[in-house]
């Protein structure tokens, strides 16, 4: 019974974590806007979320006792994204120093991701409020 209340929260929680990972990724791109040879990365959010939530209820997760360990299933997400989930952004205007950060696009992605992060936060908040009013029972 309690599962049904928390399952929706699990999904949103996973989405929130992925949003924060993407936020960090874009922040790294913006930070390296002037680094020679830096290649901008991005993630396909839909695919990554699908991959992350499909392994959500698995009971056979590996225990990790160190930050460097690679967990399996849902535990793998907290240890950082697998490198294969990340894609390379192709630059529309190549630079002489082989840097592929497109600042306009990164700024747009950053704002977009920030808003979607807040949206996910609101989803969780309203979910919690719904559960609370159900528990309170007046």
């Amino acid at each position, binding site marked *: 019974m309690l599962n049904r209340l928390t399952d929706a929260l699990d999904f949103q929680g996973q989405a*929130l*974590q992925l949003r*924060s*990972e993407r*936020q*960090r*990724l874009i*922040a*790294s*791109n*913006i*930070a*390296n*806007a*002037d*680094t*020679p040879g*830096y290649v901008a*990365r991005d993630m396909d959010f839909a695919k990554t979320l699908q991959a992350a939530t499909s392994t959500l209820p698995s009971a056979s997760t590996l225990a990790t006792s160190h*930050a*460097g360990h690679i967990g399996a299933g849902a535990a793998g997400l907290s*240890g*950082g*994204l697998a*490198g294969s989930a*990340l894609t390379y952004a192709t630059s529309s205007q190549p630079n002489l120093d082989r840097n592929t950060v497109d*600042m306009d696009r990164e*700024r747009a992605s*950053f*704002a977009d991701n*920030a808003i979607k*992060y*807040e949206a996910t*936060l609101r989803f*969780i*908040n309203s979910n*919690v409020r719904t559960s609370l009013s159900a528990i309170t029972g007046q």
Partner: protein
Amino acid sequence: MSMLSIFNVSGSAASAQSQRLNVVASNLANADTVAGPNGQAYKARQVTFQTELVGQTANDPTAAGVRVSTITEDQTPGRKVHDPKHPSADAEGYVTYSNVNAVEEMVNMISASRSYQNNLEVMNTAKSLLLKTIQLGS
């Protein structure tokens, strides 16, 4: 809390950019220097950025900060002015000034300050998102 390392990423970038701004300031200040402490004309300095991984795991590409790897001196010969009465004039009456190109330095300065602002904005956004995350469920 992967969002917390955004402060490390953007902070390292802001620090690297401020170092670049520092170098630009010293170049501009010495644009008309005839001789430095070693008796030679001042040589323009240039910073080189390098990506620095600040993630928890060794090769986590989602948290890439920046650091200044080297500061190189521009080896092009300085500006020579014929002025036999100058105390630093050589045997042929030429005075060697520094090789700072003021236009180049101004462009460098604007680029550094814009990148600095970008990183500050990233940190501000991350901060407001984190503050909202703290209030989650209330």
